[in-house]
């Protein structure tokens, strides 16, 4: 029999984990979901965020989340550079789908291998006062190292959603995602807006990376596990919708956590990816997708 408190704990932990997954996926929802730029190198940028947090934490004892937020402008610029490169090499030439994908795949791989060469394959971790203790409510445990990233992720998703729906550039990004041709007729350049959007998308990696290294020790190849999760959530959430993405992230977190609680952690990766395969095969428009 399944014991009730185990199940409730698994669900709560799954929701917390799902919040973190949402933080990781915000960027891809913007770049891939809205703008059709299949940036499968996103995990490499997230890992870069992890190692930035690791270094500042080791040198000056800085709080990883603070580092994550402080580093966002640099990641923003990095994202704009990557998009410029992508634009000149692929988008301008027209339909070069395979080459564009191969470009990001190469980027992912180069990022991972560079990190291996610099930091080695040892697990790295950070120190912060909230890693370790947890809050107990009845028989439900809320570990702070999961709770902080989850709350942070909710704030992040909220800010992004507000920015996209309320600000001028945010609305322009949504407009590009709906009809770039029409936007051009309004005398706005889709390229410039896309550049900003990809910048934002990579900037979120800085914060998401700091969350990741709080949640678990990090080594360069773990980024790979996140490719499937990120894209599974993005597709499951209906590609363009932030609330849909959040729901999908929580769902994946809960399913994954229940699987690892009751069947063992070695099965949990298959759950995420199996869910992705089934979603892609059965309902490619996602849970809350348009259509």
């Amino acid at each position, binding site marked *: 029999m399944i014991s009730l408190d185990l199940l409730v704990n698994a669900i709560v932990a799954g929701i917390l984990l799902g919040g973190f997954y949402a933080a990781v996926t915000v960027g891809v929802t913007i770049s891939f979901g809205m703008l059709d730029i299949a940036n499968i190198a996103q995990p490499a940028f997230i890992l870069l965020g992890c190692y930035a947090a690791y270094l500042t934490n080791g040198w000056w004892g800085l709080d990883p989340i603070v580092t994550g937020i402080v580093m966002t402008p640099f990641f923003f610029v990095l994202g704009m550079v990557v998009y410029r490169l992508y634009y000149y090499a692929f988008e301008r030439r027209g339909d070069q789908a395979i080459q564009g*994908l191969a470009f990001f795949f190469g980027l992912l*791989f*180069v990022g991972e291998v560079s990190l291996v060469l610099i930091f080695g394959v040892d697990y790295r971790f950070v120190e912060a006062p909230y890693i370790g203790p947890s809050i107990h409510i009845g028989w439900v445990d809320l570990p702070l190292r999961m709770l902080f990233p989850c709350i942070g992720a909710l704030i992040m998703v909220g800010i992004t959603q507000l920015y996209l729906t309320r600000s001028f550039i945010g609305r322009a990004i949504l407009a590009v995602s709906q009809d770039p041709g029409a936007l051009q007729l309004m005398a706005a350049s889709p390229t410039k807006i896309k550049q900003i959007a990809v910048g934002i998308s990579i900037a979120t990696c800085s914060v998401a990376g700091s969350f990741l290294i709080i949640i678990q020790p990090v080594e360069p190849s773990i980024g790979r596990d996140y490719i499937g999760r990120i894209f*599974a959530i993005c597709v499951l959430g209906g590609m363009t919708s932030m609330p849909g993405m959040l729901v999908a992230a929580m769902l994946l977190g809960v399913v994954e956590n229940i699987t690892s609680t009751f069947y063992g952690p070695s099965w949990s990766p298959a759950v995420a990816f199996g869910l992705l*395969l089934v979603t*892609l095969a059965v309902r490619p428009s996602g849970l809350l997708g348009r259509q």
Partner: protein
Amino acid sequence: MRNGFFWAILFAVGLILVVALRLLISNDYFYFAGYVILQYIVLSTAWNILGGYTGYTNFGTGAFFAVGAYSSVVMHKLPALLLAAFQWKIPPIPLPVMILVGGCVSGLIGLGTGYLTLRLRGVFFAIATLALSIVVQTLIVNWSFVGGSRGVYIIRPAMAPLGGGYIQYLFTLMALMAVIAVGIARSIERSRLGLGFHAIRDDEQAAEASGVPTLRLKLISTTISGGLMGMAGAPLPYYIAHLDPTSSFDLQYAVNSVAMPVIGGLTNWIGPVIGAILLGSIQQLGTVGFFLDLSIPPTFNLLIVGLLLILFVIIAPNGIVGLVRSWLGRRET
């Protein structure tokens, strides 16, 4: 060149090369390195049938490759299992049979992937194949009969057919597979099948509208591609002697099998061969410290592959074949 004629030449070249090498070179290391390069010729040619001809990017090479390898492990352990369970005595299964079976199993998985993803275009297909490789890896990790996450030791038979050591035997088999893979790729390229693949790559909807049976062709493409990858993986347990999920599903297989055709040239059978020989040799020579007398760590080799991949897709999207073609074209005019 007619197809039959090309096959004959290909076999003759392969045979002469293998016989000459085996007469001239006795250093075992040469065969270990040559095996890897030949294996990459098979993998990148197989990848190109789906990726280059049909236009579907497969990042799951590792899955098909490892399924071939693990089907060999199962067949290697089968005689002992049958003896213990039913007292049935069967002789050890010969390697060529394992290669055929491995190819069939991976081909079936390719067919399944094709069915599962038949509604997916471009990026989604690529992501689905990445997901597939993780799902298959998780299944293998949790399957204790084939060693689970700890891996499995396979002892090479002491005696090898065709004379010479076992590694020479593996090398010869892999050379044969490379010949077959390249022959298949070229035959497809010159056939109606190849025309259909190209139509799908250029515009799937237009192809469907003009009466190209896109679904059937896609399934054929995924099956052939997956099957060849499985064949390339089948001898792997005997090559490395200790097979574990982390190394057999390594991302380097996926990266190399994407990078080699892209760097060589996507639309031509010779492209993946050039790419595989070039990148494969660089990696093998780098590992033994051929350049500057420095032994370059394997991770650094992979960094070079990744950087070359990025460089080529940006500067020369049609690969070396494309560069040569545009150079020849310019000279003629």
